[in-house]
């Protein structure tokens, strides 16, 4: 079990891990409200990588990683994730919030 300090490393390694063994790899998110802690884990039961944070900005990054994994897992490991978690989707989702331009 290794906590990875860099978010980008974590993303890269976790996607690698999944693609190496899609049938065995799982992605787990643990959230503890009372301590304000968030832990992400990706493992295939041989290798295990983790990322720990208490920062709200990391939760935003996680949203993108969630999208990547939803796409990979629902569409298969060959799915194209270059577009996922990009601006297109992030902007398409909160459309109803009406975050209009301030004038």
């Amino acid at each position, binding site marked *: 079990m290794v906590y990875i300090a860099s978010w980008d490393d974590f993303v890269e390694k976790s996607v690698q891990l999944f693609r190496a063994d899609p049938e065995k790899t799982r992605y787990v998110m643990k959230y503890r409200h009372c301590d304000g802690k968030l832990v992400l884990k990706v493992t295939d039961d041989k290798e295990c990588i983790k990322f720990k944070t208490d920062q709200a900005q990391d939760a935003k990054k996680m949203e993108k990683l969630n999208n990547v994994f939803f796409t990979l*897992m629902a569409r298969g490991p060959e799915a194209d994730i270059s577009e996922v978690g990009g601006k297109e989707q992030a902007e398409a989702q909160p459309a109803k919030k009406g975050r209009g331009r301030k004038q």
Partner: protein
Amino acid sequence: MVRLQPDPFLNELTNMFERTTEKGSVWVTLKHSSDKSKVQRNKMKTAGEKIEYRCLIRATDGKKTISTMVGAKDHQRFQSSYATILKARMTALKKRERKDKRKAADSDKKADSKKRSSAAKKASN
């Protein structure tokens, strides 16, 4: 383990987050799964059948476990609702720390006055 449809799953997940605000954690697991046993999979493989994989989502608070499956057709709708729930529930995480403490205090005041001034702006508009 209770298998739910995606929408009831999201409702139950919201309840889990509410139940664990005082103490406890919530775990959500994503997995690439065919929802079939290994024996079944091997049978299908030898029969030359195509195995269909979808995304299995499990959630637990340590007492109760729920699960659902989403496929290529409905994962986008699910993931945006899921993101909305997370955003609404993960409120205990820290906002970006400011280097200068005095600045932080100032910006708090500013945020307050901003509210007032933006309200005033609206009124004047």
